[in-house]
């Protein structure tokens, strides 16, 4: 079955990004397809590569990146939410005259249409948030 995942909450906030990750992993382990993970609202903060959590804590961003690399996942960050919160890729850096980029490996910035498409294409859309 095809699943789409929406993450509305940032890492280290409550538990939604952890649950979303563990659910996504469990779905893949059961042989389901993850059509897309869409990061919306504060969820875009999952996609910054500038975080340095303590060594004995989980690294939420790296965990997503590693899962994406292993299973060829499409991790999409909402562009409008990203612009507000300073999640920047090379294109956004140039377009908006910023001095740096910080999008983590495996993530890409795109629009809300990607969420709509995921809702249409996937058999199930599961939302995790605050």
């Amino acid at each position, binding site marked *: 079955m095809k699943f789409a995942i929406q993450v509305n909450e940032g890492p280290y906030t409550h538990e939604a990004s952890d649950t979303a990750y563990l659910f996504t992993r469990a779905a893949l382990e059961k042989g*389901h397809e993850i059509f897309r993970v869409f990061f919306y609202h504060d969820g875009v903060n999952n996609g910054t590569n500038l975080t340095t959590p303590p060594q004995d804590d989980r690294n939420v961003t790296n965990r997503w990146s590693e899962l994406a690399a292993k299973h060829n996942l499409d991790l999409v960050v909402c562009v409008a939410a990203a612009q507000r919160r300073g999640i920047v890729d090379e294109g956004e850096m140039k377009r908006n005259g910023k001095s740096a980029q910080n999008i983590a490996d495996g993530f890409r910035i795109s629009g809300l249409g990607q969420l709509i498409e995921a809702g249409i294409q996937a058999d199930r859309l599961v939302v995790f948030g605050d």
Partner: protein
Amino acid sequence: MLHIINKSPFERNSLESCLRTASKGSTLLFIEDGVYAALEGSAKADTLRQAMQDYTVCVLEPDLAARGIAAKAMDGIKRVDYAGFVDLVAESERVQSWL
């Protein structure tokens, strides 16, 4: 239909909102702080016992265990792990997260 509740009934009214609209025969799944709804003897226990007449009630076991209340959950609640969570979603044509 699957209804996912992720906040404590002592913090938000998402459980009440869900119960107001969920049709009979639906499944409720408590995750994250939502698992506090499953606590035996709490002020919400009667609400949940009533809900169990009309709905299948499930709880994410790892989130119960993380809060140290795995032994204190009410009888009649189905415990699932993440694989079971995935199965519930796959079995349900529609999934609503009460955020």
